[in-house]
């Protein structure tokens, strides 16, 4: 195994271990039975939005489970401690550590597969392994589809597909989002616009109450839709922070499919303003 990957796995395990420790509150010991551990799991903080957050009980005596969900498994470890094990579903391995109520952790325990020869696998372990193999096969089968989607997304807005740019009308209300221009492609459309910059104390508070709020993103990407008057359903492809330091902020959102040739106007609809762009004017 790659030593850096091992370190990453261990680091991620310790990141997960913080939450059951915090959920212990003022208790002096970790519960040592299923009911107590499940109560602890129900009290866990949600964690940060990007984090895999599934925790589950295991008894610690049966063979390790792999449910393919990046689950962190909690089991009694004796001496008031908790065993915390994190599975790596892509290679059927896991890393575990014993966590004490004072925050001390023991040595890392690396577990390859189920830790026993195949002949000793339980029914549950065989089922988990078969599910893992099935997921791997499905992943392989979808590889070509993923590759095709990847290429399409990389090539959608290359210059060969560019048709023309269309300026939005001048004189829009600068207190609302202002559309600057559309870039029309054979494969989609890019809406380039400006939005008023919120005050710095909103954009970058010293110690925000909600550390996961994203005021820059909320300001740059207000709810918006485009309407070509022909009923085409546009899907957002990419969002791009063109300039998050400027005032007004500049941003870009791309959509697919392309604006049909028959369309004469595109309306960009924000909650606070609608901008109609005449495609035949330029």
């Amino acid at each position, binding site marked *: 195994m790659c030593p850096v990957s091992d370190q990453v796995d261990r680091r991620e395990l*310790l990141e997960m*271990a*913080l939450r059951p420790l915090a959920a212990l509150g003022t208790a002096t010991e970790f519960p040592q039975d299923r009911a107590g551990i499940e109560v602890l799991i129900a009290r866990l903080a949600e*964690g*940060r939005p990007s984090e895999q957050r599934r925790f589950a009980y295991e008894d610690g005596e049966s063979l390790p489970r792999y449910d393919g969900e990046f689950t962190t498994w909690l089991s009694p470890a004796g001496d008031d401690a908790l065993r915390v094990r994190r599975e790596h579903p892509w290679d059927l391995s896991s890393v575990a550590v014993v966590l004490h109520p004072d925050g001390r952790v023991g040595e890392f325990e690396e577990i390859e597969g189920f830790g026993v020869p195949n002949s000793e696998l339980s029914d549950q372990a065989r089922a988990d392994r078969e599910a893992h193999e099935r997921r791997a096969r499905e992943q392989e089968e979808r590889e070509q589809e993923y590759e095709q989607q990847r290429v399409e997304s*990389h090539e959608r*807005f290359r210059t060969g597909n*560019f048709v023309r740019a269309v300026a939005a009308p001048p004189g829009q209300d600068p207190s609302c989002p202002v559309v600057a221009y559309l870039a029309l492609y054979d494969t989609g459309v890019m809406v380039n616009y400006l939005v008023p910059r919120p005050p710095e104390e909103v954009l970058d508070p010293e110690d925000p109450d909600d550390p996961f709020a994203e005021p820059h993103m909320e300001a740059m990407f207000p709810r918006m839709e485009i309407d070509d008057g022909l009923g085409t359903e546009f899907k957002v492809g990419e969002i791009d922070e063109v300039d998050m330091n400027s*005032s*007004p902020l500049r941003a870009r959102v791309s959509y697919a499919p392309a604006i049909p040739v028959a369309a004469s106007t595109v309306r960009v609809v924000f909650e606070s303003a609608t901008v109609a762009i005449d495609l035949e004017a330029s």
Partner: protein
Amino acid sequence: MNPPYFDDDHAAQEAASILLLRVALRLLGEARLRGDFGEEAELAERATALAEELTGGATSPDPIRPVVEVALLRPDRISLVARFRENSFTSWRLMLDGTLYDGGGGGSVTAVMVDPEDLSDEERLDLERRQAGWEADRARLEQFTATRFVRAVAAPPQPDAAVRVLAVLLYEDGFYVEHTYDKEPPTFEPEMEAEEFFALHLEEKPEISVNDDVGTEYFESGGGGWGGGVGVSHSSLGFAPAPPPDARLLRISVSGETVELDLRP
């Protein structure tokens, strides 16, 4: 296969993160019983003691910073920083409910102050000349503030150009030239050093110059942005001043191709 930045430095950073998290767990183990992280001074002292215990008293990789530093943000929040090289660190913030946030890493630069009195006459003159140059460059760079948008002007089609000008965004004190060009997706060579990788993939930005039909001298100002995706760049470059009211044509030259934009409303 790992991209080049997954090297020894990354391993050292991960090791520092693990140490940071071990300290965080111990501090959290004490704080949860109290209901808060305690007083700032005691917290910092406790973090130092824990880092020493957990590393066996190893010296910090940064000669002027302790291996782990902890600061109180609020009674229920702390920040933790662990050093893994001189001037390099990894950091997290931790809430009393065990949630980590604002994780990151980076480096810092140590500046050396030089007393102008210690310089020779020649060195002092050279410094003054360079400072005057920096001031002039900065004044030009800051001239275009991009605060008052006026309107956009779409560029005519340039089907054969490698770099296509899309539009110009006119502001009261300057303008952005919006342009796009294709680029090759980056490749990862397993044997490549990080410096080689970044040198190879350093994007060569097209040189853009602008003039008009009334002889205005335009210069780069206000910065720009280089975005887009893996195989294409969608970029903008700022210029000052704004075209005067009597200018009717803006000529933008990129890589030997010139496109003319009609400025008339």
